[in-house]
């Protein structure tokens, strides 16, 4: 009799607790930033059910409309937990990567000294990066903030990965058209193992024209995969301190082969 009563109360407490966990967000209403378990300013805590729904929903939305970068971002955040842990460990094991994890640099227009960078010699990382931003009319500030990663350090790794993306374009010499983006995605998939990159790498080619697809499969693709697998982790480079470094020298240091000569180079040489 006592045992069954004990069991029943244990079950109700357990059920009530799990129910509160599920709908926990609704019961706290104090006036502070951390009222619902926020770990960083843009954090939105979610439970596994919500993450699964977000992953499925954002996947469908991103496939339907590839211009919804926020959906691609959400998909990456909700599916990338394991890959982010591996990336973070790689960063910890590298001295430069470790420094990045401690100092947490952010690549934003407000942190870049544009006048100084444009005065750098041609062929340097800073000058080429600036040229890339201007030619393709993109800005590092358009990267979405990380929202759904439930660990503060992993959220930074994700944010760093997003902000390094444009630098990757510069390093690989790929423009921002569809073929260039797919090539960069193949490199990223080989390097990071993020499910979102792998998905993008497999589904991206679908939207390519036949000639672009040929280029991808024959030369760009294998080069990207090879470089991605062999290269040092691109998140381990403290780019903000290497603006003066020569681009080719940096590529050699990172073990990235220079891009196979193709029609893309014509765009760059007309600047």
């Amino acid at each position, binding site marked *: 009799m006592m045992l069954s009563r004990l069991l029943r109360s244990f079950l109700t407490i357990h059920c009530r607790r799990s129910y509160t966990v*599920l709908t926990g967000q*609704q019961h706290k209403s104090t*006036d502070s930033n951390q009222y619902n378990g926020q770990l960083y300013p843009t954090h939105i805590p979610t439970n596994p059910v919500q993450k699964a*729904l977000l992953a499925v929903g954002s996947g*469908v939305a991103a496939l339907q409309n590839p211009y919804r970068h926020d959906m691609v971002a*959400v998909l990456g955040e909700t599916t990338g937990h394991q890959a982010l842990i591996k990336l973070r460990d790689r960063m910890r094991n590298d001295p430069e990567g470790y420094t990045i994890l401690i100092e947490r640099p952010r690549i934003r227009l407000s942190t870049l000294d544009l006048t100084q960078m444009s005065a750098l010699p041609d062929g340097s990382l800073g000058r080429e990066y600036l040229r890339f931003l201007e030619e393709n009319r993109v800005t590092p500030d358009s990267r979405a903030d990380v929202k759904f990663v439930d660990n503060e350090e992993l959220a930074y790794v994700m944010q760093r990965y997003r902000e390094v993306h444009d630098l990757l374009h510069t390093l690989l010499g790929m423009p921002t058209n569809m073929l260039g983006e797919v090539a960069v995605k193949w490199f990223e998939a080989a390097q990071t193992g993020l499910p979102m990159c792998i998905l993008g790498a497999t589904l991206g080619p679908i939207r390519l024209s036949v000639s672009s697809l040929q280029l991808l499969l024959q030369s760009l693709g294998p080069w990207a995969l090879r470089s991605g697998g062999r290269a040092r982790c691109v998140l381990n480079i403290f780019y903000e301190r290497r603006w003066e470094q020569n681009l080719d020298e940096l590529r050699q240091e990172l073990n990235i082969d220079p891009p196979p000569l193709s029609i893309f180079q014509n765009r760059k040489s007309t600047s």
Partner: protein
Amino acid sequence: MATSIRTLVLRVVGDSTRNIHHVLGSRVKHSFCNAGITVCRGYSDGKSTHFGFETVPEEDKAERVYKVFESVAKKYDVMNDAMSLGIHRLWKDTLLHIMNPQPGLRLLDTAGGTGDISFRFLEYTHSMYDRQQRQRARSNQTPSWQDLAGHYKTDEAAPSQSRAVVYDINKEMLKVGKQKAEKAGIGTGLSWVMGDAEELPFDDDQFDIYTIAFGIRNVTHIEQALQEAFRVLKPGGRFLCLEFSKVSNPLLERLYDTYSFQMIPVLGEVIAGDWKSYQYLVESIRKFPDQETFKEMIEGAGFFCVQYFNLTGGIVAIHSGFKL
């Protein structure tokens, strides 16, 4: 993505200074609390209210609500359909049936936003007018010349007499509503006014019907909105409010809560790219008074014969009152 760097630098500088003000503001408040000094000192009269489950100063609530609807305006109707699985259309249709407006009345559709209630109102009165005309024609098979002349005179007047004013505080919502009206070809009898529900820019005794559908829970001072509603209604005018309310059945309540807090912000993120606004929406529903309390508030503003109708198990309630 396709903006030049130079314009972006200016925007970034603007953004960062705005962020600094916000951070400073919240930090100052926090340090006041820490020192044991109440928040009241140094701020206005220190009154605070709820913004969902957050507590905010009263002056801030209106602005924050404005930002919510500014960001969701374009996807507002799509989200309504997705969140309620289309049932919100039935709720609004029921409101019109309870209203049962005769042709020739003036409607003030407060928090009318994208115009759903006003469009239904005009459609309803127009079809009722047509029906009345047909009945008149049927019962009047052999009209005299005088009757016919009389009909010609009144023919154009009656439909345009039904007039709806869509009144909302948010410019973006009104913009979306206007576009909808243009696309649907509804023009006559519709006007669009921007303003606050707590301070209506209309004279006393102007309208036959006042509706506020899914808007009153966003108002900072609900009693004031009710008093204004009382003021602008003609004697004999009707107040109607369609709003989320308390579910009576506990099982349904748990299902509804789970659905609200698990699914709706996710839908908001995926469809509208805005988790926080829809989190605010489901929280604000919980903060709104229940059916009886709201009924008492309406009676407090001076309305008579106040009653409410529960729809979908109490998820939504229609409150009605008369100015006598």
